[in-house]
C-alpha cells in the first residue's frame, strides 16, 4: 500500500480497497471479490470508517460515507471515485 505507485484510476482504487479489506480481515487479497457487497465481508462500522478515511488520504478527495450505501461494492465505488476524480470534482489541490 505505498502511496508512490498509487494511481486514482478505477483499477488503482479497486486494488487499494481489495488490499485494504484483505488486511483488515486477515484474508488473502484473492478472496476479496470486488463485486461482493461491502456488508458481505462482515465489515463493521468502525472498519468502514477506517477505510473511508484512509481512502480519502490516498486519493486526496473527500469520500462521503453516503457513497458506501449508493455504491455498495468495491468495483462500483472505485468506478464512481475514478470518474469523479477525472472530472476534477472535489479533487485535491
Amino acid at each position, binding site marked *: 500500500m505505498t502511496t508512490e505507485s498509487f494511481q486514482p484510476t478505477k483499477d488503482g482504487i479497486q486494488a487499494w480497497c481489495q488490499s485494504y479489506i484483505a488486511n483488515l480481515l486477515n484474508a488473502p487479497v484473492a478472496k476479496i471479490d470486488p463485486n461482493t457487497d461491502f456488508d458481505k465481508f462482515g465489515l463493521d*462500522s*468502525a472498519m*468502514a*470508517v477506517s477505510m*473511508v*478515511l484512509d481512502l480519502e488520504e490516498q486519493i486526496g478527495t*473527500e469520500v*462521503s*460515507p*453516503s457513497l*458506501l*450505501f449508493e455504491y455498495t461494492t468495491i468495483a462500483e465505488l472505485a468506478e464512481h471515485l475514478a470518474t469523479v476524480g477525472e472530472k476534477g470534482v472535489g479533487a485535491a489541490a
Partner: protein
Amino acid sequence: MTTLQAEHSPKTDPKYGGSKEAILHHYDIGNEYWRLMLGPAYAYSAAIFEGPNDTLEAAQERKFRWHMKSAHIERAESVLEVGCGWGTLLRMISEEPQVKKVVGLTLSDAQTVHLKSMNLPKVEIRTENWAVHEAAPGTYDSIISIGAFEHFAKHQDSEEQNAVVYRDFFSRCHRWLNPNGAMSLQTIAFGTMDRKDASEFMKTEIYPDSDLPYLADIIKAVDGLFEVVAVRNDRFDYARSYDEWFKNLRARRDEAVALVGEEEVRRFERFFKIGSIGFRMGKIWLLRLALRPIHNDWNVMGTPSYAEGHRLA
C-alpha cells in the same frame, strides 16, 4: 422510593444525571472551534432536512420550529430548555411575544460564557444539572430537551441504574410542567446495535460517562407520566448533519488545527464519519418525541384546549 433509587441519586453520585467532566471533555474544547464546525446555526444536534439542496442553517431552524410546535411554545409563557447548547433555540423562544421567561440549563462552562454574552431578554441561564434544578410544580408550560438525554446515563452503570435516572428525569419534568403543557425531546438511541457493542472510541474519546437509551427505555420511563403524541426516527437527518459538519471542518481545516491541534481535528473527523455511517446503517437512531403530561382530572385530559395541544405537524 425503591432501594436502588435511594442508592442512586445526586447525593451518592456527583455524576448522576450527567457528568460535568464528560460535558467539559466534549463541549469545552473551544467555542470558536465548535462554531467553525456547526456554522451560523450554532446548533449541535440533528437538523430536519428537506430536499437535496437544503442548507444546514435552514434545516436547523426547521428542527427548532418542529420542537417549538411539538412543545406548544405558541401558548407558553414559561419555558425550560434542558441542555441549551449555544442558545440558538433560547433566542428563538425569547422572540415569541407571549413568552415571559425562558430558563436554559447547561453543564458547559464555555457555553455559559457564550450564553451570558448573548444578553437575551427574558432568558435565565443556569449552569446546573437537571437533577438538582428546583422549580415549583407547574412552573413551566413547555419543556424542550434536544441532544442532552445522551449524557444522562453512563455506560459503566447498570441498565437498572440508568432506568432510575431516565424515570427520575421524566418524573421531574412531569412535576415541573403545567398540566396543560407539553414536552419535546430529541435524542440519539441505540437502533439495531447492542449496547455492549458500542465502540471503545465512542465511549472513551467522544462521550465518556455517557450512554444511549433504546426507544423501549424511553417508553418505559414515561409510562404513566407522559402520553406519547408522536415519535419520529429521523436517523438520516443525523447522518446528513454529521456530513455537513464534516464538510465545514474540512473547508476550514487549517483554522481548526490552529485552534485545537491536529489530533483533535482528526478525532472529530473520525467521529463524524462513524456517526454518519452508524446512522445510515441503522445501528443508531435519532428519536424525536412529542409528549403530554398525564393527569387524572377529566377537566385537564379531555378539554378542547388539551385536544388542541394534541395536534402536531
